[in-house]
């Protein structure tokens, strides 16, 4: 095969490439944005939270070692278990798998970086700062104490008047935003930055899993964002979404929370499983058996996981029929996991696996995860669940699933992929001890809990009486927890002794693996971007490593002198354009710190400093965005092989358009959750919707609001056409139309709100009013954002940064605008037409 670029390469080509990817040195390293650095920071921070939350677990285990212990009082213990669960879920598990994705994905798909490096930096810093402040609430006895599931009414203003619960709602709500930012990055990265030729059927399983993972975040996290929003509104302004006496229902929270909470388990597990799917073939030195089946299983799990949330609510007294449905769905989700387990076994059977440390962790994973899966089938059975729900049996079950399904694969991954980052490998000898301690410790800690639960010990109790027969089992669990902790401590020692990340490409390919992350690389990833014709390119494509390293493939240097990566088509990975990417930058980091400060200051009820930080964050975002959308600053560039790629595109080919669409999916899912809340509250208020004393207003006002919304959309559509014709007619028609859209949408919102207000409806009186005002409030949030974006777009136009070609900024504003109008029309229809339908 003739390779795209001939040898020898120009002498200064590699130097120019290295110069473009030069990292800041010293403390300025924190302004780095490229995925290798952000990925490692991100993983390191997540491991820090694993350790902190693990210490909380050890303290709890110490308290429970003997009955009637007074090591921790009830207040401290309740904060600890809330923080342990919350941190493990939101600050360790989701971030660490996302972080592994940020670190690994570009290498694995042959990109130089993720498509939005500063967004990764923003997501990371928001998470790191927010997470650390959140953790520190423990030192002031301000940590949330309502459980990681935060069930109202316990967590509402009546029973949790302090700000502890607000730390959870604002802190976690904010960290979810960071997770979503990362997910958008990952979706676009996987779909649009794969090396030429890596069609979807050649995408490594890990890429598939991360695609499903990100998709599940896009649809799952909005539900928890919506319910934290509702609960915060109830706490702060007494909007009674969850208060039964005022037409609310505590079960609304449970539905929304578990609609997120169950997929969450698979959000954590699928990346772990996919790490196994990458490591097993390398250990066995044969390709993965059943690739297509595994991909199918991943996608099926993603879909099914959204249909099982009620199995967390089997004891709430729901109708039998719906319990049976969710019981069946919960069993069905075991099938895709079964397929994966047998595919791994088949792969091991085809090869001759070596018992390196990663392989030990994989075997430990199989042992633990299969047990956890089997108990998972048990708790899917309704009557059995009635007994074990909220007992230590369930604690045992989900630690088997989560530690087995995610932590063991993660440690396998640490030992397996460390050579891609570090100049020296982690120690095999220490690694075996780490595995041994973790495996024995884990099983000793958690297996007895199955029995403790069957003997009647409920979860979330800070102490227990001596005569219950739980003492010995609890003592065993505590001993096991310390052994597990010792294993993790030993891992940290191994890291300190042997982990030497330099960003310069690591220590080769010690496992003789077949995928792209094992190509020789530097900060710019690979010297040239290969053409992919197989799933294990290093195994299947002879001489690939040498040819890539010598620069014979695409883009062996930098074409524009800046950081670049090749954007390819989503399905078959044909090269489409060259994406210029930013280097080190402070704006994303400062914006993240400002956002974190805004949320945290709001939590501790310091509104003025909060607003200052919020404005600062917005200013930083604007400064950051200002340098995006560079336009066609360079002519199309030759990347080799006779292929010349443009450096700027707009419309549906553009990566920014894709990111915007994914963001709108998130947005639409949050809105859908609020609509769900409206209809759910209707079902708990049969015959009184609207409640007595509330009259439906005439349809005249909402019709006017709808017309104004539609008119604002038309103005933007006209502005879009005017921008396309700006060469001939100048920018003024576009500017006028865009400016005109603003008062139209504001008037529409104002009329919709005024209509409710003048009819006497108040949000704090009944859930009906609260449900309506939250829909309108969410619409108001969009109007405010669009006000900013319209001003920003106009400013770009005035500064000459907007023209018929360079218009990604305008396009993004337009997409959100049309979406906002659609959302507003749906909200108006639901609010005004639905009650008339059911009258």
């Amino acid at each position: 095969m003739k390779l795209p670029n001939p040898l020898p390469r120009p002498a200064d080509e590699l130097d120019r490439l290295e110069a473009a990817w030069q990292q800041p040195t010293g403390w300025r390293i924190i302004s780095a944005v490229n995925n290798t650095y952000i990925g490692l920071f991100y993983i390191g921070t997540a491991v820090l939270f694993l350790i902190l939350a693990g210490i909380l677990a050890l303290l709890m285990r110490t308290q429970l070692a003997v009955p009637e212990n007074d090591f921790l009082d009830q207040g401290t213990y309740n904060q600890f278990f809330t923080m342990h669960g919350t941190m493990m879920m939101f600050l360790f598990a989701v971030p660490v798998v996302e972080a592994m994705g940020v670190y690994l994905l570009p290498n694995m798909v042959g990109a130089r970086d993720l498509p939005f490096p500063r967004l990764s930096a923003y997501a990371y810093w928001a998470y790191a700062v927010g997470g650390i402040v959140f953790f520190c609430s423990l030192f002031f006895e301000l940590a949330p104490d309502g459980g990681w599931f935060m069930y109202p009414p316990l967590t509402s203003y009546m029973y949790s008047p302090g700000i502890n619960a607000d730390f959870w709602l604002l802190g976690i709500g904010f960290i979810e935003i960071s997770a979503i930012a990362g997910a958008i990055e990952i979706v676009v990265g996987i779909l649009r930055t794969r090396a030429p030729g890596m069609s979807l059927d050649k995408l490594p399983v890990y890429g598939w899993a991360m695609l499903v993972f990100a998709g599940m975040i896009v649809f799952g996290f909005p539900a928890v964002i919506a319910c934290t929003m509702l609960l915060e509104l109830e706490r702060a302004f007494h909007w009674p979404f969850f208060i039964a006496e005022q037409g609310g229902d505590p079960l609304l929270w449970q539905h929304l929370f578990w609609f997120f909470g169950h997929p969450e388990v698979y959000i954590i597990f699928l990346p772990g499983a996919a790490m196994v799917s990458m490591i097993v073939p390398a250990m066995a030195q044969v390709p993965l058996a059943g690739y297509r089946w595994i991909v199918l299983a991943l996608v099926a799990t993603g879909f099914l996981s959204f249909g099982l949330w009620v199995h967390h609510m089997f004891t709430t007294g729901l109708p039998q029929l719906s319990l049976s449905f969710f019981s069946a769905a919960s069993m069905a989700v075991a099938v895709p996991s079964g397929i994966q387990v047998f595919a791994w076994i088949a792969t091991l059977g085809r090869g001759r696996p070596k018992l390196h440390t990663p392989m030990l962790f994989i075997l430990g994973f199989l042992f633990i995860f299969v047990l956890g899966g089997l108990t998972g089938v048990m708790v899917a059975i309704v009557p059995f669940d009635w007994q074990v729900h909220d007992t230590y049996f369930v604690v045992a079950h989900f630690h088997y699933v989560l530690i087995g399904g995610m932590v063991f694969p993660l440690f396998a991954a640490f030992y397996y992929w460390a050579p891609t980052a570090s100049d020296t490998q982690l120690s095999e000898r220490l690694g075996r001890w780490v595995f041994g301690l973790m495996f024995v410790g884990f099983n000793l800690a958690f297996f007895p809990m199955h029995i403790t639960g069957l003997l009647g010990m409920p979860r979330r109790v800070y102490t227990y009486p001596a005569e219950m027969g739980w003492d010995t089992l609890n003592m065993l669990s505590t001993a096991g927890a310390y052994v597990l902790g010792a294993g993790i401590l030993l891992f940290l020692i191994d890291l300190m002794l042997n982990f030497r990340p330099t960003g310069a490409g690591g220590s080769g390919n010690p496992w003789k693996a077949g995928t792209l992350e094992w190509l020789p690389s530097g900060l710019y990833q690979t010297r040239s971007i290969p053409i992919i014709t197989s799933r294990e390119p290093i195994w299947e494509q002879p001489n690939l490593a040498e040819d890539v390293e010598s620069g014979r493939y695409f883009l062996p240097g930098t074409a524009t002198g800046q950081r670049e990566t090749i954007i390819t088509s989503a399905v078959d990975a044909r090269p489409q354009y060259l994406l210029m990417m930013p280097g080190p930058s402070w704006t994303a980091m400062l914006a993240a710190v400002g956002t974190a400060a805004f949320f945290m200051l709001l939590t501790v009820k310091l509104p003025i400093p909060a607003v200052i930080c919020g404005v600062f964050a917005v200013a930083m975002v604007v400064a950051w965005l200002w340098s995006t959308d560079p336009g066609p600053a360079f002519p199309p560039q030759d990347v080799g092989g006779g292929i010349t790629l443009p450096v700027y595109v707009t419309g549906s080919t553009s990566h920014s358009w894709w990111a915007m669409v994914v963001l709108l999916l998130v947005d639409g899912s949050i809105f859908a959750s609020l609509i769900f809340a409206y209809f759910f509250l209707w079902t708990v208020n049969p015959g009184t919707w609207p409640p007595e004393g509330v009259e439906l207003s005439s349809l005249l006002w909402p019709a006017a609001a709808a017309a104004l919304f539609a008119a604002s959309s038309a103005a933007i559509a006209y502005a879009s056409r005017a921008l396309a014709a700006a060469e001939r007619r100048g920018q003024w028609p576009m500017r006028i139309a865009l400016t005109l859209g603003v008062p139209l949408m504001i008037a529409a919102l104002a009329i919709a709100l005024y209509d409710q207000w003048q009819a006497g409806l108040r949000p704090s009186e009944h859930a009906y009013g609260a449900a309506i005002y939250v829909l309108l409030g969410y619409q108001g949030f969009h109007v405010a954002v669009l006000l900013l974006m319209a001003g920003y777009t106009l400013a770009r136009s005035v500064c000459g940064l907007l023209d018929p070609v360079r218009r990604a900024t305008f396009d993004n504003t337009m997409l959100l605008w049309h979406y906002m109008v659609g959302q507003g029309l749906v909200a108006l229809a639901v609010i005004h037409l639905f009650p008339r339908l059911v009258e």
Partner: protein
Amino acid sequence: MKADKRHPITKAECPFGFRWPVAASLVTAFLLLTGCDGIQAALTPNSPGAERIAEIAWILFIGAAVIFIAVMALTLYAMIARPGRGGWIGSGALIIGGGLIFPVVTLSALLIYTLDAAGVMTAPAEGNPLRIEVIGHMWWWEVRYLDEDGNVAFVSANEVRVPVGRPVTAAVSTADVIHSFWVPNLAGKIDMIPGRVNDVTFQAEEPGTFRGQCAEYCGAQHAKMAFFVVAEEPERFARWFEHQSGPAREPQTPFITRGRDLFLSSGCGACHTVRGTPAAGRIGPDLTHVGSRVSIAAGILDNHIGTLEAWIANSQRIKPENRMPSFDVFEGEDLRAIAAYLESLK
């Protein structure tokens, strides 16, 4: 009438799984090592519903054990098998057979086997069930017994007394946050949710004392929100029911009279009811027949004069953050008199 003190099922009586003697005895052996009391255990059932669940549980445990061992054996074989020999271990048929067909068949069978069980357990009780209402409070249980007409016959707390062999339907609800009503020996748990009333039905088969505990996290003292269920012969239950419906017993000695007067004059009646006296508070447990109960403080302390004294004087140390302040103002004799009065309320 002197109530039975706690008489947990003895180890010899532990009625582990009737149908699965081998596995049951293995687990029993383990549980005995850990000191099985079995008064709050899902696998020592004493009602038809709990028995059915225990039967399902044993099938699940044994099935899971067999599958687990098989999968581990396959993994081990895959690790040591030489490629080429025994090619089935690396075949697509293994993936489809083990990962798709086997679980689909097994899970379908399991679903069919368990589908009706939940329905049977939630069906309205046949015959003439005893109807009670249990209301969760932070952190104790209000128990109301209904008469034949569905009116409240009397109110008690932290203890459910039931006749053996007659179905009991408990309508559960809450006065504040979400709690969950759970007596594992008799039935699965059912949540107590604001704005809703859920029903659970069970029927004790043998006399005995069983422990229940709140199973939904409900704040500071979730850990100390327990209660006892006392199942007794129908005649005995009927006598008890009759007695409980009546007012509190009048003091029989001057010391106890002093206790009652102190109880009334110290403001205890603001929170507690003692029927037949001016005390009519509704915030805390009804104390009309508190001396007849197995425990005090929601299943936390045995019930005798010493624990009553300790609780009155030190309730915030025994159960911090509970709604009752520590009454450490009483002199020793006064404290003892109040405790004696409460103990006398059989």
